[in-house]
C-alpha cells in the first residue's frame, strides 16, 4: 500500500506535462478537470497511503521507495527516492487536501482570465514539487523540490505578466529566496562531504553518533540550513519578498504563500531537528528570529491597507510562531500549528479572494465595509478563521495549537519566560490586526457594492476549510481540557516527543487563562480603535511621531529600503562597471602600442639614403665589436 506513494507526486507532475504541452488546445473545462483531477487523485492516494501507514493491523510497511540512482561518485551515492513517515505524511495530506480545495476554487476564480491552462499547469507543477520536497529521502532531492516550488512561485506571482510590477515582484521573490537557497546548498554540501551521506535518515543517525553537541560542523550545518529556511519561509531578514508576492492571483497566495511553500522552512528544520539539537546556539537563534519576526510582522500587519498584504504579514507572523516553537525544540507543536494555520490562513485568503472578485478587483480595505449583510457565508467562514487565528477558545483550532506552543516555550529553560512574553505580545497583536480587518471589511458602513453572490465552486472550499479551522484543535488538547493526544502520538512515529514538564502544578491552567486574556484584549483594542474610532487612536495618529511610525510599519520596518541601498544599488553599479569590460583597455592598449610603435618606426623611413648608409655602417661596427669582445 505504501509503495504506491510514488504516485502522489506523479499525478500532479503528469498533469503539469499534459497541461503545459497541450494546454493551449484544450478547452477551459478540460483544463479545469485535468488540473483538479490530478490533485484529487494525488489526494486519494495520499489518503490510501495514510490508511496503510497508520493501520495497526497491517504489517509494518516499507516506508522508503527508491526510484533510481541519481548520481554516484566513488564514496557517495545519491539516490532519487521517497521516504514516508508521520511528518511527511502530515505535510502530504495538508498539501493535497488544501491543494485540491484551492484547485476547485480556482476553476471558478480564474474563469475569466486568460492563460487558464498555463495557470493549472503551474499550479500542478507546484503541487508535484512540494510533494517531492516533503517526501524526499535525501537532502538533494529535497533541494530539487525546494527549487521547484520557488520556480512555481516565481511563475505564479508573475502570472499576469503584462504588468511589469508583477514580474518585478516575482523576480524579487526568487532572488531573495535564492540567497537562502545558496546557504542551503552549501549546508547540504557540508553534510554530504563530512558525514558521507545525503540520505536524511542515515545522515541524522550518523550525526547523532559521530558529532558531539556544539561541534563546529553541527553549528555550521544547522546555521546554513536555517538560512535556507529563512528565505523560503519569509522570516527576518529574508522576509521582504512575501508582501510583494501578493501580486499573484489570490488562490496562489492562499496555496503557496500561506499554507504550503512558506512552511517548507518549517518542514526542513522539523525534519532535521536532530541536527539542530546538536547545535543549541543555532536552535536558540531560530527561536529569537521567530520571536522577532512575529512581533515585527504583527506591527506591519496592523498598518496595511491592502487586504492581501495584511494577510501576508500575518502569515509571516504566524510562521514566526512556528519558528519560535522549533527554536525551543517543540517541533511537534510547530507541526501542529502548521496544520491549523494551513486551514485558517487558506480560508482567510480564499474569503478575501471572493471579496476582491466580487468588488471588482478591490484590494483596499478602507473601500470595503458592511459586507456581512451581502456576503453572509463569506463572513461566517472568515470570522471562524479569524477567531482561530486570534486563538479565541474554545471552538478554534488556532487556540489549541498556539497554546501548545506557548506552554512549551514557557517551560523551555531560563529564557523561556521572556520568549513567552514576546509570544504573548504577539497574540495581542494577532487578534488586533485580525479583528481590525474583520471590523473594517465586514462591519461598518458599506462603501462598495459587491456584484452578486459567489458560486458554489467558490463557497464549498470555504465551508470545507472552516470545519478543520474550528475543530482541528481537538487533535491535541491540554491536560485540563480533555488531554487528547492524538496528534502527538501520530507525530511521535517520526521521532519521540519529549514534552517538558510544567514547572508548577497549576501552571498549565494559568498559562491558558493568560493567553485567552491576551487574545481577548487584542479584540477589544481592535474594537475600540477601529470600530469605535476612539479619540486616543486618532490623536496618536495625528502626531508626527505617530504618522511616522505608521508609515514605518507600513513599509515593513524599512527592510526594503535598507536592502535597496546596501545590496541592490551596489550590485547594479558593479554590474554596469564589469559589463563594460574594463579589461578591454588592457588589450586595446596592446593594439595601441603596436600603432605607436609603427608610427615611431616609420619615422625612420624618410628616404634619406645617407642616413640609411650611416645606419648600415653603425650596425656593422657594432656587430664587429660584439664579435671581437665576446
Amino acid at each position, binding site marked *: 500500500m505504501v509503495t504506491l506513494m510514488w504516485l502522489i507526486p506523479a499525478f500532479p507532475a503528469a498533469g503539469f506535462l499534459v497541461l*503545459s504541452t497541450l494546454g*493551449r488546445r484544450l478547452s477551459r473545462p478540460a483544463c479545469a478537470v485535468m488540473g483538479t483531477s490530478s490533485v484529487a487523485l494525488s489526494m486519494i492516494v495520499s489518503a490510501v497511503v495514510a490508511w496503510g501507514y497508520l493501520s495497526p493491523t497491517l504489517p509494518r510497511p516499507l516506508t522508503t521507495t527508491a526510484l*533510481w*540512482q*541519481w*548520481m*554516484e*561518485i*566513488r*564514496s*557517495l551515492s545519491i539516490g*532519487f527516492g521517497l521516504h514516508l513517515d508521520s511528518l511527511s505524511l502530515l505535510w502530504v495530506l495538508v498539501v493535497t487536501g488544501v491543494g485540491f480545495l484551492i484547485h476547485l476554487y480556482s476553476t471558478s476564480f480564474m474563469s475569466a482570465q486568460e492563460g487558464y491552462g498555463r495557470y493549472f499547469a503551474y499550479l500542478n507543477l507546484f503541487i508535484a514539487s512540494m510533494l517531492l520536497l516533503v517526501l524526499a529521502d535525501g537532502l*538533494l532531492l529535497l*533541494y*530539487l523540490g525546494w*527549487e*521547484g516550488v520557488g*520556480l512555481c512561485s*516565481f511563475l505564479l506571482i*508573475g502570472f499576469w*505578466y*503584462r*504588468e*511589469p510590477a*508583477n*514580474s*518585478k515582484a*516575482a*523576480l524579487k521573490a*526568487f*532572488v531573495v529566496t*535564492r*540567497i537562502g*537557497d*545558496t546557504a542551503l*546548498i*552549501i549546508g547540504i*554540501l*557540508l553534510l*554530504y*562531504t563530512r558525514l558521507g551521506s545525503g540520505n536524511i535518515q542515515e545522515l541524522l543517525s550518523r550525526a547523532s553518533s559521530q558529532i558531539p553537541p556544539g561541534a563546529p560542523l553541527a553549528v555550521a550545518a544547522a546555521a546554513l540550513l536555517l538560512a535556507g529556511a529563512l528565505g523560503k519561509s519569509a522570516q527576518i531578514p529574508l522576509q521582504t519578498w512575501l508582501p510583494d508576492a501578493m501580486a499573484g492571483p489570490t488562490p496562489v497566495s492562499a496555496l503557496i504563500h500561506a499554507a504550503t511553500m512558506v512552511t517548507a522552512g518549517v518542514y526542513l528544520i522539523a525534519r532535521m531537528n536532530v541536527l539542530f539539537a546538536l547545535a543549541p546556539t543555532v536552535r536558540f537563534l531560530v527561536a529569537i528570529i521567530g520571536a522577532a519576526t512575529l512581533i515585527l510582522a504583527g506591527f506591519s500587519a496592523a498598518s496595511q491597507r491592502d487586504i492581501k498584504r495584511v494577510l501576508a504579514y500575518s502569515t509571516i507572523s504566524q510562521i514566526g510562531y512556528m519558528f519560535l516553537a522549533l527554536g525551543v525544540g517543540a517541533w511537534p507543536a510547530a507541526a501542529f500549528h502548521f496544520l491549523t494555520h494551513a486551514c485558517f490562513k487558506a480560508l482567510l485568503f480564499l474569503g478575501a479572494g471572493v471579496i476582491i472578485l466580487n468588488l471588482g478587483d478591490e484590494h483596499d480595505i478602507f473601500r470595503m465595509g458592511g459586507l456581512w449583510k451581502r456576503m453572509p457565508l463569506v463572513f461566517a467562514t472568515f470570522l471562524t478563521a479569524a477567531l482561530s487565528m486570534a486563538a479565541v477558545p474554545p471552538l478554534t483550532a488556532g487556540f489549541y495549537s498556539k497554546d501548545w506552543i506557548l506552554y512549551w516555550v514557557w517551560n523551555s529553560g531560563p529564557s523561556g519566560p521572556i520568549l513567552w512574553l514576546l509570544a504573548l505580545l504577539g497574540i495581542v497583536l494577532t487578534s488586533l490586526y485580525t479583528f481590525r480587518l474583520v471590523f473594517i471589511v465586514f462591519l461598518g458602513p458599506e462603501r462598495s457594492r459587491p456584484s452578486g453572490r459567489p458560486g458554489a465552486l467558490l463557497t464549498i472550499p470555504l465551508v470545507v476549510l472552516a470545519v478543520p479551522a474550528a475543530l482541528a484543535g481537538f487533535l491535541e488538547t491540554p491536560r485540563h481540557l480533555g488531554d487528547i493526544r492524538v496528534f502527538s502520538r501520530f507525530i511521535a512515529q517520526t521521532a519521540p516527543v519529549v514534552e517538558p514538564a510544567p514547572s508548577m502544578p497549576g501552571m498549565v491552567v494559568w498559562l491558558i487563562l493568560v493567553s485567552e486574556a491576551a487574545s481577548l484584549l487584542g479584540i477589544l483594542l481592535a474594537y475600540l480603535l477601529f470600530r469605535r474610532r476612539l479619540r486616543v487612536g486618532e490623536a496618536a495618529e495625528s502626531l508626527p511621531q505617530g504618522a511616522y511610525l505608521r508609515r514605518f510599519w507600513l513599509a515593513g520596518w524599512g527592510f526594503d529600503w535598507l536592502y535597496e541601498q546596501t545590496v541592490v544599488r551596489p*550590485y*547594479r553599479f*558593479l*554590474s*554596469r*562597471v*564589469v*559589463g*563594460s*569590460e574594463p*579589461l*578591454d583597455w*588592457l*588589450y586595446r592598449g596592446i593594439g595601441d602600442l603596436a600603432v605607436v610603435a609603427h608610427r615611431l618606426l616609420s619615422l625612420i623611413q624618410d628616404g634619406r639614403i645617407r642616413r640609411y648608409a650611416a645606419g648600415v655602417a653603425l650596425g656593422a661596427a657594432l656587430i664587429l665589436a660584439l664579435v671581437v669582445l665576446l
Partner: protein
Amino acid sequence: MNLALLVLVPLFAGLLAWLLGRRSDSAARLTAFAGLSVDLGIILSLWVRFPGAGAVGPGKHWLEQLVLPWIPQLGVRVHLALDGLSLLMVSLTAVLGMVALVVSWASVNKRVGLFHFHLMVSLAGIMGVFLTMDLFLFALFWELMLVPTYFLIVIWGHANRQAAGIKFFLFTQAGGLLMILAILGLHFLHASQTGEYTFDALRLAETHLPGRWGMLLMLGFFLAFAVKLPVFPLHPWLPDAHTEAPTAGSIILAGLLLKTGAYGLIRFALPLFPQASARLAPWAMGLAVAGIIYGGLAAFGQRDIKRLIAYTSISHLGFVLLGIYAGSRAALEGAVLLMICHGLTTGALFALAGGIQDRLGTRDMDSLGGLWSVTPRLAAVTLFFALAAMGLPGLGNFAGEFLVLLGVFAVHLLPAILAATAMIVSVVYALNLVCRTMFGPSRPASAVVDLGAAEMIVMTGLMLLILCLGLFPQSVIDRVRPFLQIIPGGIG
C-alpha cells in the same frame, strides 16, 4: 574507419556544398545536411555498439582506434582514438552542428555554398580535435577549426564583425602559437631523453619532465586552452566574437569551440604534466572563481541579448575550469557533465536569440518585451533554457555544477563557497533576461511568427536531452569514468 569518416565526411560535404552552391542554394544546404546526417548515423551506431563504459587502464580503455603512419621521419602518425569522453564530445559536435544548420536554413541567404563550406570544415576540425591522440594532428585540427570560424564571423556577422573577428583571431592564434611551441618542446625533450621522435600523446606522457621545463611546457598548453575556455582575464575576445557572429557561428563558438579548450586541458594538459598542473591548481581555481563571478556580474549589466549569453558562458566555463583543477574525480566528472549541458543550453539560447533577432530586428532588451503573448512557444522554450542556465535542479546544468561543488568542497572550502554564490548571480541575470524580453506589455510589432515545426522539433529534442541529463546523469558519468580514473591524483 568510422573515426576517419567522422572527420572526412563533413570535410567533403563542405567542399561539395561549396561547389554545388554556385548552382543552387538549397543544394548546398542539403549536401551539408546529408553530411551531418551521415555523421550522426555513425555516432548513433557507436552508441549502440558500446552500451557500457570501456575497461579501465591506460591505453586499454579505447573503444575504437585508427592508427596510420604519416610522416615517420618526424614521428607523426594519424592516430584517432575514441573513448567515452570523446564519444560524448563528438556527439555534442554532431548535435550542435545539426542545430546550427537548421537554424541557418532560412536566415543565411548570401554565398550560401561558401557558408556551408566554412561551417562543415570547422566541424570537421572540431571532430578531429576530439578524436586525435597525435599532437601534430591535434595542432593541425586546432588551426583547421579556427580559420573557417573567423571567416564565418567576418563575412556573415553583424555590424561590428571586422573588429570582433580580428580580436578573436589574434587571441586564439596567440594561444595556438604557444601551444605549438610547447608541443615542439615536448617533442624534442622526449627525443633527447629516449632518442625517439614522436608526437604521440601517450608516448610523450612518459617523458621525464625536470621541474622548470615541465612548468613552461604545461603553461604553453594551458595558455592556449585558457584563451579558448576562456579563463578570466583572457576572455575579452568572447563577448565580441559571440555577439557579432551569425547565429550558427555563435552556436558553434559557444557550444563547441569553448569545449575544445576544456577538452584539451582534460585530455592533454593534465595527463602530460601532472606535477606542474598540481602546482598551477590553486591559481587556476582562483581564476576560475573570478571568472564565475565576473561573468555573472557582467551578464546582468548587458542590454544586448547575445552579449548577455556570451558572458554567461564565461561564468559557466569558470565552473568547468574549477572542476578540472580541483584535484577531485567527482569534480572532474561534474566538469565533463557541465561541458555537455552547457553546450546544449547555450547553443539553444543562441539559437533563440538569433530567432528573436531575425523576427524583431533587434537584440537590445530595452526595445523588447512582452514576447510571451506574441510568440508563446519561443518564450516558453527560452524560459526553459534560462532555468537550465541558472542551475535549476532536475536539469543537466545543476547536476554538473553540484558535482563540481561537491568535489571541490571535499578538498578546498573557500573556492566552493565562492563558486556557490554564483547561484545567486545566475538567477539575477537569467530571470532578468526572461522578464525583460518575455514579460511586460507587448510592443506593437508587425507579424511576428512563432517557432515553426522544424525549430520546435530541434528545441524539444534539446529540452529532452537536458532533462534526461538532469535526472539521469549517471549514464554520462559512467562513460567518462574509465578515462578520468587514469588521470593521477584526485579523490573519489
